[in-house]
């Protein structure tokens, strides 16, 4: 950033109290690709939420006569091995996959923030104990931990959400702790302490807002990763059980037909890929928007 660019942007950003959120949105709007991702994701979310209304068939309605049909006018995406309409199942499936990923990211965010801020703020032996526990959790390959926890908790929607979130907690906690340590040392926190704000106020008012933007970026990237992991769990027969139309379960159920009825495998895979692509585009855009240095 040569002195010129800095001066230019200084004058340009009229000093008005635009809230952080608006600034991010404005910055995000510059990044066309991120907007493309955001729109795509919102479109998918809306389609999935409206699925009961717009879906042509009932996702569990079996039709033994029309089994394994390739895409046709009646069934745009064709039917699966029990004659159920794949398009409907993908729409309903979205509700499972996307909501489970979002929920699991929120859960790991909450746990991560709590653990991170406790470790970050109090420091000392509390910090060390927590850090060593996080080391232990993180020294197991992510997928393995999720599988064992999912097996321990059992199958089903909420259990799978918990299993998915366990994996993200150490990373979020560590991220927040690093932010807390950095922010805690900075001047304006000392300034706040000097005018004797209460500790809680300091945490809420100063530590959180500044630690929040990297967390948001990491969380948005994590959603994409969670969708893939959620599908992998169903692929291994854990997580959500049939007849629930979760994308991973559909993919794993149809993989034996890949040679003869590939349409059953292609569409769920595409659904996962498109959603994760949209989330990645959005995540990248968000990261650039939130990172002041990269402001163009």
């Amino acid at each position, binding site marked *: 950033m040569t002195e010129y660019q800095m001066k230019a942007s200084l004058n340009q950003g009229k000093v008005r109290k635009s809230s952080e959120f608006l600034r991010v949105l404005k910055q995000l709007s510059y990044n066309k690709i991120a907007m493309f991702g955001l729109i795509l994701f919102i479109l998918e979310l809306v389609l999935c939420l409206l699925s009961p209304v717009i879906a042509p068939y009932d996702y569990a309605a079996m039709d033994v006569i029309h089994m394994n049909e390739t895409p046709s006018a009646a069934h745009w995406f064709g039917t699966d091995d029990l004659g159920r309409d794949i398009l409907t199942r993908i729409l309903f499936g979205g509700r499972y996959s996307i909501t489970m990923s979002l929920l699991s990211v929120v859960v790991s965010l909450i746990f991560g923030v709590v653990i991170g801020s406790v470790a970050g703020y109090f420091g000392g032996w509390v910090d060390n104990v927590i850090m*060593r526990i996080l080391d*232990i959790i993180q*020294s197991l390959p992510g997928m393995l931990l999720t599988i064992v926890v999912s097996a321990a908790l059992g199958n089903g929607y909420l259990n799978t959400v918990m299993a998915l979130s366990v994996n993200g907690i150490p990373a979020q906690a560590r991220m927040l702790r690093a932010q807390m340590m950095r922010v805690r040392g900075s001047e304006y926190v000392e300034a706040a302490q000097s005018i004797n704000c209460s500790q809680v106020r300091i945490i809420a008012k100063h530590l959180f807002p500044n630690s929040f933007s990297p967390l948001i970026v990491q969380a948005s990237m994590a959603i994409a990763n969670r969708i893939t992991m959620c599908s992998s769990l169903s692929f*291994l027969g854990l997580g959500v059980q049939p007849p629930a139309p979760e994308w991973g379960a559909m*993919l794993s159920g149809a993989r034996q037909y890949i040679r003869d009825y*590939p349409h059953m495998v292609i569409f769920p895979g595409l659904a996962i890929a498109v959603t994760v692509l949209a989330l990645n585009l959005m995540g990248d855009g968000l990261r650039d928007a939130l990172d002041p240095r990269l402001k163009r």
Partner: protein
Amino acid sequence: MLRYTLRRLLWMIPIVLGVAILVFTLMTFCPGDPAQILLSGSATDEDIQALRDNLGLNDPYLVRLGNFLGNTFLKFDLGSSWMTKVAIKDEIATRLPRTFTLGIISLLISVAVGIPLGIIAAVNQGRLGDNIATALALIGASIPGFWLALLLILLFSVKLNWLPSMGIGGVKYYILPALTGCTYGIATLTRQTRSSMLDVIRSDYITTARSKGVSELHVITRHALKNALIPIITVVGTHFGMMLGGQMITETIFSIPGMGSYIIGGVNQRDYPVVQIGSIFLAIVFSLSMLVVDLLYAAADPRIKARYSQSAKRKVKTK
């Protein structure tokens, strides 16, 4: 440096112990009675109770934990799988190399493709090269591994019949599984290289280098890349960890008898020793690779090497 490495190795012992206890506890929570699964339904109650005593499942939790830790860490008796009666250490001796080689091969492919792609994207930022590289990276990151595996098998082994689609054997057998594993790796590495290179290219010492008359190629390779290495190594490290985990799906699809399918089989059949010992070994391999990553940090950045060797107290991980 040696002292730091020794300290880190000593630190691994409590961590591996922690992993053992964590997995042991998780497995005890798993619903399903191993004895019943073993006898697979054709046995009466007292058969099942007899087997439970035989396996020590009826002892209280703490006793069993004590025995398990005692056997594993003191007597180094890794025991044998309940289902197959085969000694776990033999099983791991044959399976770990396969998983490890597969992990290393896809890691190397990710590095060999990901980093150059990232550099190309960073060097011509905003131009065509950048768009193509970013698009490739995004696609790689969004395709689910197992879906890609199925499509690759269809393309390469069924239609073109170039590569075997399953099993183990010479190098030919590792190509498709490695390709499946590394698409995500290439994607994350490209994006990480691009962003850290962009940060570095704008810094002052790059302008100093240019003012010395250094050619653009050398500015990138000698000055920019060496400084951008740290965040890249972090991604390579965490990616290798994910690789070990991600193998489970690849191994199931390509029927490669590696650690992944062994542990998943163990979890499904509630074969406690297999899961516990398998996890410990994976945790050890994982922690060792993390240590290698940290040592790579020191090799790449003298400032970190200085902090390792002077700091007497534990190196506080503030990744």
